[in-house]
């Protein structure tokens, strides 16, 4: 089967966009991200990931595609498996019917990733679009080109264990509407993001950022410099690593607003897009400053407090931004 691979910044958007393009819907990665309300923030200090507090810049795996599909009127089928053989059989049946299929996989055993990137992270996404002998043809959206995995390798990543275990999950669109109401889908996506980021809960959105800022001030006293620096490094990894993002996500969102401005014929969104770009740049500055701290190269005396101030300033910018965005649509 013919399948066109497009590289993307984030795996879930990328799989969604590639699968839908295959069905003839011309939807960009930023469009999937915006309609699926991919921009998010969440801080859960009690939950530890890699021995550091859980900070997430994205919603739960699967949410972006599910929400985007629902808002566009597309039906997506998702199946989990308890048995490895059945999982492979179901995938092969799909391929025999020429259905490129999305999979949730673990990163640790993805042989084509550099060793340094192979962690037990189970919410990666890729597309299988064919099989030659005992090798599956893979389109992994974060890679520049297509790649392959053997039967055994694919089985391992589909049945990776630990937090968010994929359980062989596969998914693919089964129903595409004739006419898509882009305007309403875009508006719903934007409203959802505004409500998330402005949510009146202490661990979500701008309030979550402020909560994290308060914690950062306490880290060095409470846990010592070594642990505090480890927490900061993990934060930056969650923020800027492949697949997740602070600055990176803001730029995708700004690209979405630019596209949305043209579709909705709304000049205000265009202005807000460039404002989001500026906020994204500030997130990148924040990452640079945090990196200096854990590299022990910062010459400021009160480094943790100044990082916390910077994060608070970002929360203020975003609070004002999402209030304006909510009004603009």
């Amino acid at each position: 089967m013919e399948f066109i691979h497009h590289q993307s910044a984030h795996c879930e958007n990328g799989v969604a966009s590639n699968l839908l393009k295959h069905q003839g819907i011309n939807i960009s990665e930023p469009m999937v991200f915006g309609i699926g309300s991919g921009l998010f923030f969440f801080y859960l200090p009690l939950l530890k990931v890699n021995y550091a507090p859980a900070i997430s810049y994205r919603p739960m795996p699967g949410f972006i595609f599910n929400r985007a599909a629902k808002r566009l009127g597309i039906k997506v089928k998702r199946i989990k498996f308890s048995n490895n053989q059945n999982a492979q059989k179901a995938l092969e049946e799909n391929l025999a019917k020429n259905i490129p299929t999305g999979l949730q996989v673990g990163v640790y055993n993805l042989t084509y990733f550099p060793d340094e990137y192979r962690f037990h992270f189970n919410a990666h996404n890729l597309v299988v679009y064919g099989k030659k002998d005992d090798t599956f043809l893979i389109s992994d959206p974060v890679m520049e080109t297509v790649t392959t995995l053997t039967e055994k390798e694919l089985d391992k990543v589909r049945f990776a264990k630990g937090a968010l275990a994929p359980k062989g999950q596969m998914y693919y669109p089964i129903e595409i509407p004739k006419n898509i109401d882009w305007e309403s889908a875009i508006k719903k996506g934007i409203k959802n993001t505004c409500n998330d980021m402005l949510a009146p809960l202490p661990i979500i959105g701008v309030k979550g950022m402020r909560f994290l800022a308060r914690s950062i001030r306490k880290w060095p006293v409470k846990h010592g410099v070594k642990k505090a620096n480890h927490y900061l490094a993990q934060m930056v990894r969650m923020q800027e690593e492949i697949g997740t993002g602070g600055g990176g996500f803001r730029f995708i969102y700004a690209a979405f607003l630019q596209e949305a401005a043209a579709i909705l014929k709304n000049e205000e969104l265009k202005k807000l897009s460039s404002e989001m770009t500026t906020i994204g740049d500030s997130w990148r500055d924040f990452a640079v400053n945090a990196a200096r701290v854990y590299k022990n190269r910062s010459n400021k005396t009160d480094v943790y407090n100044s990082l916390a101030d910077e994060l608070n300033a970002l929360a203020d910018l975003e609070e004002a931004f999402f209030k304006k965005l909510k009004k603009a649509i």
Partner: protein
Amino acid sequence: MKKEEVPQDSSNLSKSNLKELCYATDENGNYITALSSGWEPKTIALQNSIEDINERIEQAKSDVASGLASPIVYFMELHKMDWTTLAGYVGMWVWRVKRHAKPSVFQKLNDKILGKYAEAFEISVSDLKKYKGN
């Protein structure tokens, strides 16, 4: 981020000749995509994690050698796992896996249980048993 600001630092990606995609603006402020070979703050964050894991592995090694931990702890760290992940791979509760981390309990384990660990670590049961922290 303007397209000329897209970072092109050397990183763990550039070693493998991989590039990641990001979104940036062109001279007219329109969004385009561009490839980045890596960005220093990310590289040092990743480096920090790798050093952290290596420290944990060394610690586990010496704990096994001095009889404070069973080989399970060493291989768990070597495979970058935590208790939850390992418990998932061997299909047991976390508290049971933690018990098996005690050398006294580990010594009494039968080959069927050890086999589950060996499979998770992709080694043989005898390799698991005979590991002494060296």
